């Protein structure tokens, strides 16, 4: 089985693996890329890392898959930009005998790929939401939401999960402001500054990732409202954990990108060796990290976080 796409030529029998991330810019994907590189090296495999040009660059990811298949890889690890946008290319790759593993983001339907190694982003959002709500105590939430890119799969899962966890419905008056930040700190800061001008009573802040949280915090700090606003976030980068420790972010949800990448690479190598295909959704887990634990949400402290963070 397999190998039909490789053309049989090339030097030696080093297994070639492709990894296609959403972009090259997000440290999360950089962590995936680097962990995959390291894992591949230790397995004696060769890894080619490609990426889309921006969040939503389906064409770029499709081209990357096509070019990797043409190059003769055994398996492709991909963090799909949109859960359904690149299914054709994935199917063609699988038809050519390449196994495709989704990392971080599941495809829709899930069995479009051989296997998925991912965080449950919705669940991560729920954790953030629950914690923020509990930390607010009796106060009525006055929530600002610093979203990522409108329409991104992960962005939507986290956003929806947060609202579910916080017990707030979309469109409710408890949401006093929302802005798209593309997960970018500068944009997040400008957006938060402007939101605070309009709604100085904001007491809860959802952020799509830790850079957005840092940007939001800068704005809150210069407005002198640090005591008033509870900030939640998702990612688990070491900078983020550090920020939790400093009290800049109230709590963050730690993800495990290195686990996803390592398991993915190992699965491809396994397949190349004996044809065993991985399958199904493999949750790599998410963990709330905070130094201010609340009742009803299981959490770990920043010391644990600093040991398990990435980047």
């Amino acid at each position, binding site marked *: 089985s397999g190998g039909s796409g490789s*053309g049989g*030529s*090339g030097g030696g029998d080093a297994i*070639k693996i492709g990894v296609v991330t959403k972009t*090259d810019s997000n440290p999360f994907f950089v962590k995936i890329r680097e962990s995959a590189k390291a894992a591949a090296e230790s397995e004696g495999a*060769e890894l*080619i*890392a*490609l*990426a889309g*040009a*921006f*969040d*939503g*660059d*389906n*064409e770029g990811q*499709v*081209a*990357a898959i*096509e*070019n*990797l298949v*043409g*190059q*003769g890889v055994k398996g492709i690890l991909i963090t799909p*930009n*949109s*859960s*359904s*946008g*690149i*299914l*054709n*290319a994935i199917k063609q790759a699988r038809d050519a005998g390449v196994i495709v593993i989704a990392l971080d983001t599941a495809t829709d339907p899930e069995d479009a790929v051989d296997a998925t190694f991912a965080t449950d982003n919705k669940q991560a959002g729920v954790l953030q939401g629950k914690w923020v709500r509990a930390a607010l105590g009796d106060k009525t939430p006055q929530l600002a939401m610093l979203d990522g*890119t*409108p*329409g*991104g799969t992960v962005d*939507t899962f986290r956003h929806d999960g947060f609202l579910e966890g916080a017990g707030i419905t979309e469109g409710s008056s408890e949401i006093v402001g929302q802005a798209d930040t593309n997960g970018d700190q500068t944009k997040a800061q400008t957006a938060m500054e402007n939101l605070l001008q309009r709604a100085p009573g904001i007491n809860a802040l959802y952020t799509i990732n830790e850079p957005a949280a840092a940007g939001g915090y800068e704005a809150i700090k210069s407005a002198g409202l640090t005591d008033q606003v509870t900030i939640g976030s998702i990612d688990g980068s070491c900078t983020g954990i550090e920020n939790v420790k400093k009290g800049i972010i109230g709590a963050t949800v730690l993800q495990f990108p290195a686990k996803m990448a390592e398991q993915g690479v190992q699965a491809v190598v396994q397949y190349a060796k004996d044809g065993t295909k991985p399958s199904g959704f493999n949750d790599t887990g998410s963990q709330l990290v905070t130094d201010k634990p609340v009742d009803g949400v299981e959490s770990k402290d920043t010391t644990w976080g600093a040991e398990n963070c990435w980047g």
Partner: protein
Amino acid sequence: MPGAIACADRPLATFPLNSHVRHVKDIMNSTPTSAVVTPGQKSRSLLERVIREPLLGPIGALLLAILIFSIITPTFLNPNNVSLILQQSVVVGILAVGQTLIILTSGIDLSIGSVAVLGTLVAAQALGTTGPFVALGATLLVCMALGAVNGGLVTVLRLPPFIVTLGTFTAIQAATRLFAGSQTYQVPEGPLTFLGTSFRIGSFSTTYGVVAMLLVYALVWYALSQTAWGKHVYAVGGNMTAAKLSGIKSDRTLFSVYLVTGIIAMIAAWAALGRIPNADPNAYQNANLETITAVVIGGTSLFGGRGSVIGTLIGTLIVGVLRNGLTQAGVDSLYQNIATGILVIIAVAVDQFARRRTS
């Protein structure tokens, strides 16, 4: 040879172009309906007419890139891989035709990609309630309407195309997301994905999208070089005042270019659904920069009035070849970006060098 030679009243035996002078005089004396042409035209084959001298640079750069990649990677010249490069170039390649037209009029279209993306969503949503052909018709209408908005603002209000299309780009992109509820829409196989269908010519397999792209190029090449409309496009872009004084309906020409670009965006939207049967409001965000790059690499002047659509095709292919070839060579995307940045500059430098040689 000095241009003054036709003034010579006496034969100048030592003057090489004298025979040409006589020839011109013969024409003057011949009956006006005779088919005598000046020597310069006689020797022009179709190929020469399609590939004009200024294209030698881009073609050279493309061939050089192909040569290098076929040497350093074993897979690059596979028919499959060549077909892939073409398929990957389809959407941006089609959009780049519209961009060429607009840049020829000394404009620029930053909205072109967003129009096509909105087109894919209109098609996908209309498909649910109507048939595929109505959906395609609706897409065409929407894309043309947006082209008309751009064109109207540029011609009637005389606003700078950069600002107009930046404004519509921003507005259309946001409107698309609202319209789509930030969702993506799957499109089932059918007429809407037709341009993604493969077929074989001998052992070479390609898609109808590639054919559509080549057709668009051929059509617009024909319109630009063989019709009065084309001359007017060059005239309007080369010197608007002179074009007006020459009695060209410059506003109408300008407006028509934006309308045609709308139609081209619709074809690109169709091809995009063929390539990825999933309408996504976040797709093709860099199409404006990518198309402009293809146009400029192809030797078209950003100041208008000079250039050709064939150059743009070559420009598109150069970018496609670079991306594919670098992947074949096992280069990671960050290094690919560095390499692409440098190679694009080199490609244009080769062009400049070739041009200075021939002029």
